[in-house]
């Protein structure tokens, strides 16, 4: 669709471009993509009008890959190569995955993250997720008629660093520019809060296909402030299916079902569960590959009974989140329900009983996350006028720390700290003449390192020899706005500086991702060179546009000679864009970036001053 474009007054000389940005809900069971069109968030549909994309990927012997509905039908026929609920494996080792015994896959335990052996080779959960994201990207580009500027990808609030990093890697692999990883309950709160002009403290209860989050948010004058979050990254609708499946095996006295029959029965279990949302009984009929027929009736009371412990597993984290926020149920103005699993009547009843109020279900619990993500993507892409936008202040769900003597955890950043956040901690040497030190970064609330998630291990070498306890090694943790951690270590006392920065990566290195990306591009017959060139040209064009907008707005912050330097860099980069050497363009981008560093700092400084004087403009004397 063609929109008339009107540039903002005082903005860039070039017409202000509406940047194509989407929000993606990468769910355990279903995924969605949404965007903001004419100021309204809408879910984008496939060519036959369906909003949901089942998060199912099938690998076939001829190398083709089916995603979504096309793969769904093959679940019981080809279970080993048809991957469902891959989100449960993201950033997870084999020992972390529940119900592995009833899963039909050929698992391979690899360092950091489990792998799946399929008919087309070994696949990492990151690659499987990337297939889902690729389909959504193509859907969006077809629907919006152009290449995407960027995407906001949602993750469960309770996802740890490994799971977040894996999600971001999957998006990169799918060729998406990740504007932000956004917590699912926070995305829902944006959609809900803006829709209802809400103020006050709200709880978002998000029970999806495989994950549970509870977030407590304060909404005031356009600020969404997360006070606390908690959850269970391995609890969701799938587990209810699993309980029904076990009940079926029990009732029908089935001992050792084949993997095909397991998948068939799990599908029947889900159907029965969904039927009980509107009915009191659900018939269960299935024919097994042995010729045996299963003929059962699941009553709603039986269902409630066999899933009671799952419901109570949501209440523990809910209590903890309230306690961390320093609040009681009486402080909660409303409870927003998110995720398909909140459709179950017994879940709604449990939430209503706990919070002593009826939960809010006026937005579709399956779409609200994608809609909120789309609204945030629209803001992050710069499609709205800056200062009037809402502000999101989110937190880190799990404490970050280091291993100390005796396998104990020293917490460096506590859970529920507002991000971005940085913390430094000093350590010293244990032995005389010690020149190296190793660090082990963990995430979790438990005292013993063995009970926390190991994120990264690294060594700092080149410490000058000193007596024990004399060296000062400062370890700095920085968590960015995506909730992702980077750690650096530096020796402080000596003139010698030894420093290292580690980004945990869980089995996939940057090179591996680059390799996979290259393979996938070659696979579709694209020319890598041409793609590199186009990407650099777009990047350079975007940079020039941003710098020119900044100059138009704040050019007076520069002296004439400084201004001339920047103008010269812009002219030089323009010439390079017209050429065909992507490396030269990249060098020009880096050079312009470097030339505008001081300017950017002055702009930020000015912006801070304005914030404190009620948005009035103060002329800076330079």
């Amino acid at each position, binding site marked *: 669709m063609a929109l008339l474009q009107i540039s903002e007054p005082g903005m860039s000389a070039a017409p202000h471009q509406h940047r194509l940005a989407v929000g993606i809900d990468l769910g355990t069971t279903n995924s969605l993509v949404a965007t903001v069109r004419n100021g309204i968030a809408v879910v984008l549909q496939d060519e036959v009008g369906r909003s949901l994309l089942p998060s199912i990927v099938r690998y076939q012997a001829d190398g083709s890959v089916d995603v979504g509905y096309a793969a769904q039908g093959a679940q019981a026929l080809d279970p080993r190569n048809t991957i469902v609920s891959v989100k449960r494996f993201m950033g997870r080792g084999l020992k972390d995955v529940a119900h592995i015994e009833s899963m039909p896959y050929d698992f391979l335990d690899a360092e950091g993250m489990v792998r799946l052996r399929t008919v087309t080779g070994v696949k990492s959960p990151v690659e499987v997720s990337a297939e889902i994201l690729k389909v959504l990207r193509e859907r969006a580009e077809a629907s919006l008629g152009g290449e995407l500027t960027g995407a906001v990808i949602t993750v469960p609030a309770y996802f740890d660093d490994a799971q977040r990093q894996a999600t971001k890697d999957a998006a990169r692999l799918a060729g998406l520019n990740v504007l932000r990883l956004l917590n699912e309950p926070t995305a829902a709160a944006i959609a809900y809060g803006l829709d209802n002009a809400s103020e006050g403290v709200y709880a978002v209860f998000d029970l999806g296909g495989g994950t549970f989050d509870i977030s407590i948010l304060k909404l005031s004058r356009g600020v969404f402030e997360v006070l606390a979050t908690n959850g269970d990254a391995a609890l969701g609708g799938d587990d209810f299916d699993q309980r029904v499946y076990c009940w079926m095996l029990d009732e029908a006295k089935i001992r050792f079902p084949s993997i095909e029959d397991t998948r068939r029965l799990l599908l029947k279990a889900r159907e029965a569960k969904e039927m009980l949302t509107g009915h009191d009984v659900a018939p269960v009929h299935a024919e097994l590959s042995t010729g045996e027929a299963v003929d059962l009736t699941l009553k709603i009371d039986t269902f409630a009974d066999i899933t009671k412990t799952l419901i109570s597993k949501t209440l523990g984290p809910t209590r903890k989140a309230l306690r961390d926020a320093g609040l009681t149920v009486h402080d909660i103005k409303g409870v927003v329900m998110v995720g398909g699993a909140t459709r179950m009547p017994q879940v709604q009843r449990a939430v209503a009983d706990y919070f002593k109020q009826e939960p809010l279900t006026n937005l579709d619990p399956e779409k609200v996350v994608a809609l909120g993500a789309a609204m945030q993507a629209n803001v992050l892409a710069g499609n709205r006028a800056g200062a009037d*936008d809402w502000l999101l202040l989110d937190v880190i769900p799990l404490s970050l720390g280091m291993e100390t003597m005796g396998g104990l955890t020293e917490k460096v950043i506590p859970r529920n700290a507002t991000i971005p956040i940085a913390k430094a901690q000093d350590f010293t040497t244990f032995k005389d003449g010690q020149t190296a030190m190793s660090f082990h970064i963990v995430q979790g609330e438990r005292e013993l390192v063995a009970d926390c998630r190991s994120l990264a291990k690294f060594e700092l070498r080149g410490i000058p020899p000193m007596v024990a306890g004399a060296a000062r090694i400062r370890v700095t943790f920085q968590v960015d706005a995506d909730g992702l951690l980077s750690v650096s270590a530096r020796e402080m006392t000596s003139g010698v500086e030894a420093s290292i920065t580690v980004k945990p990566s869980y089995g996939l290195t940057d090179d591996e991702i680059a390799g996979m990306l290259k393979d996938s591009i070659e696979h579709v017959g694209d020319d890598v060179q041409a793609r590199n060139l186009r990407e650099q040209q777009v990047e350079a064009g975007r940079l020039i546009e941003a710098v020119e907008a900044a100059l138009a707005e704040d050019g007076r912050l520069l002296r004439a000679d400084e201004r001339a330097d920047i103008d010269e860099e812009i002219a030089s980069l323009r010439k390079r864009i017209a050429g065909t050497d992507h490396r030269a363009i990249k060098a020009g981008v880096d050079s312009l970036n470097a030339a505008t560093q001081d300017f950017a700092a002055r702009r*930020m400084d000015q912006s801070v001053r304005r914030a404190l004087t009620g948005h009035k403009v103060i002329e800076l004397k330079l």
Partner: protein
Amino acid sequence: MVPDFSQDYFALFGLPRAFRIDAAQLDQAYHALQGRVHPDRHAHLPETERRLSMQWATQVNEAYRTLKQPLLRAHYLLRLAGMETGHESNTAMPAAFLMEQMEWREAVAEARAAGDHHELEKLMQRLEKHGAGLRGEIESSFDAKKDFAAAADAVRRLMFIEKLEHEIEDALEALES
């Protein structure tokens, strides 16, 4: 290049340097500042600005956290006044205070061992009252009397109280899970 954060946290939020703080004004200034510097405001801008924005937002969060929590705010005021609280090494406390601490500690341990939820809540309420009194003492030492030595003394006592409160919270959490 690292942005210049040389302003103190009070000046950053446009607040007077004092222990007594207008919480609403602090929140408002915090939101106004994050509204300008937060990475979400700069996500579409070049790498240089994005990095700068993360550094600023990190600093603003740290400043807010420091001023928001009374104990951290008190420590910060002492540091600005050039006084070290020495909260790790300086544990020389009056004997009477230490005796009282031991009694508290025993009461918490007993309630914890007995799994007495109600008793733990009661202890918590008593501690909170005690803490409120100390915060009043800190406020008058800083703001009215300008007696930083007396403030430092009350700060050290408040640290003991808050540590006990955390122990009770842990005990309550352990009882629930």
